[in-house]
């Protein structure tokens, strides 16, 4: 019934910290520390978190730009780290594409749009020049660019147009999964909606799956089916997008949502207060004991600094927090629609 296209199991990425002449390893930066998720075909999963939470490392691991310390990534049930070189080239690379954050640096300034979009085709297929040419024009049309723009260089376009070119390049091979690393965060707010709508339309049309890396909650809410909130290399909350935004469980999720919302004058009258997190994310070199979030959590108790919370399922959501250890709290939360401060 559920058609899982990508499954990540217990991903870990530790970077060694070395010191001295002999490059002794004195510690490990735990950029990603035990993350699991699944992406269903035709659906969007968003990874959300502050910078340093490890979300980009996950994206790089999926794109095989970064080697994992441990864990496995299954693409249609097959471990991508066990693929041979030729299998990768045949079965994985052409089917998993990406759109990067910065449309000003993700394209070779010396290539024309025609060649930029054609590159995945040239590298991965044995099509003739004529076939490639017509395919390029076809995709260009789909992302809303004019055919006479193929001979321009990337610098001759605006940011939004460039991001369309990047999307076109990702689409060229008819992939199944596209990794979108902050696809709209470099763009003007007025352009963002256009690109997001384009991505959603393409998803519907081709049954594409997206792995979105983002920090902007409005983007995430608009684009995702499921959302994973990351903090310091861990997923602290996971759930369906609408549920998670209307009933955030983890204090960190609540803080993020609260901080991202506009405070209207009437809210202030009602006494709705923003949760402002103090301080910065602790260093992943030395993650705090117990719950990693306890140093900044408004609801932290003694227990939080000692015991690592377990992941608990509440309805469709999964949350890693001691607040929900008590079964009565759990059932109260799953019944009450207005548990979170940001609930509508």
């Amino acid at each position, binding site marked *: 019934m559920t058609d899982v296209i990508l499954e990540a199991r217990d991903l870990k990425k530790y970077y060694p910290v070395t010191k001295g002449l002999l490059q002794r390893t004195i510690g490990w930066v735990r950029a990603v520390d035990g993350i699991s998720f699944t992406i269903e075909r035709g659906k969007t999963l968003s990874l959300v978190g502050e910078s340093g939470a490890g979300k980009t490392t996950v994206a790089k691991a999926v794109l095989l730009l970064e080697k994992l310390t441990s864990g496995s990534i299954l693409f249609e049930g097959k471990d991508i780290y066990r693929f041979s070189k030729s299998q990768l080239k045949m079965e994985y690379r052409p089917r998993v594409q990406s759109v990067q954050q910065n449309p000003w640096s993700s394209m070779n300034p010396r290539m024309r749009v025609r060649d930029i979009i054609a590159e995945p085709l040239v*590298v991965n297929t044995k099509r003739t020049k004529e076939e490639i040419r017509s395919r390029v024009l076809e995709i260009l049309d789909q992302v809303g660019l004019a055919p006479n723009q193929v001979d321009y260089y990337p610098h001759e376009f605006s940011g939004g147009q460039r991001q369309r070119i990047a999307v076109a390049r990702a689409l060229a091979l008819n992939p199944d999964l596209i990794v979108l690393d902050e696809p709209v965060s470099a763009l003007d707010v007025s352009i963002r909606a256009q690109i997001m709508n384009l991505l959603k339309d393409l998803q519907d049309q081709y049954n594409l799956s997206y792995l979105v890396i983002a920090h902007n909650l409005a983007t995430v809410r608009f684009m995702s089916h499921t959302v994973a909130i990351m903090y310091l290399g861990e997923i602290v909350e996971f759930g369906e997008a609408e549920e998670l935004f209307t009933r955030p469980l983890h204090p960190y999720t609540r803080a993020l949502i609260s901080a991202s919302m506009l405070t209207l004058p009437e809210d202030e009258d009602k006494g709705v207060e923003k949760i402002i997190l103090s301080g910065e994310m602790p260093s992943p070199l030395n993650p705090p004991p117990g719950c990693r979030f306890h140093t900044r959590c408004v609801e932290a108790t003694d227990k939080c600094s000692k015991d690592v919370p377990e992941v608990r399922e509440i309805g469709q959501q999964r949350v890693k927090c001691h607040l929900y250890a008590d079964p009565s709290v759990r059932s109260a939360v799953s019944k009450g629609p207005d548990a979170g401060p940001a609930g509508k």
Partner: protein
Amino acid sequence: MLSIMPNIEDKTRPRISGLSRGARILRGLSLVIPATVLALMFLTAIFADLAWIGLPDVGLSPYHPNDQVLKERRLPPAFIEGGSTEHLLGTDNLGRDVLSRVIHGARVSLSVSLLVIFITATIGTILGITAGYLGGRIEGFIMRVVDVALSFPGLILALLLATIIGPGYMTVVIALSALGWAGYARLTRGESLRIRQSDFVAQARVNGASTSRIMLRHIFPNVLNSLIVIMTLAVGMMILAESMLSYLGIGISAPTASWGSMVADGRNDLDRAWWISTFPGIAIGAVVMSGNFLGDWIRDKMDPRLRQL
């Protein structure tokens, strides 16, 4: 839209390039003059005589460059007192026609520098991009060799080569190429290191592009800018290096004319016959400067981002 703002359209048209009229004329001249100078130099070198199609007596050069007329030594050029139109640029200390020697010298000087630049830039760029992109042990090895090449005294190597294979044209080319590639390798490796980090290279890897494709299609075109600048600067350096070697007797041996050896020959007569070394010197200066200007122009033209400036 045009009908709404016709005046603005008209006013902006002459300045569409973003430069004032005077600046654009200067810019145009900075292409036309050096291109003309270089073209003339090359044509002169080619048509100095037509021996290469079997007509040794036809050509631009009025005399044979090595014909000595000892009675007519140190004749001044035609435009100063005592000169005659027989020898437009005068004669040297052995009574050879300076103009003919400058014309023939262009062959040696230009061909040596172009050949050396071609060889060194090719080797250096291949090694530099390989080192910069692949990294690791390959990079370590290549860059240590580069360090050795850069620290090795070029003159001693040239002397060594001259002793082994004897002085001559190829000795100069080999001596200048043997160490010259290292500079290109260092430059292109640095650039490759920078470009390797860029998002579009990561994107190419995601697409599954092979290492050689990334080096050729993504790194090399982006290295080209700096490469061209260095190559054009090298034109002058190579002409000077060739003349130095020829002066030391390692390079082009007498009586064959090269600009460098002519400057060297004339230095003893600078007080009484300045023209002997001045005219080949002017030729060197003209080629070097034209090369630099043309290099700048090519660089601007090749960089798509600067094309509209």
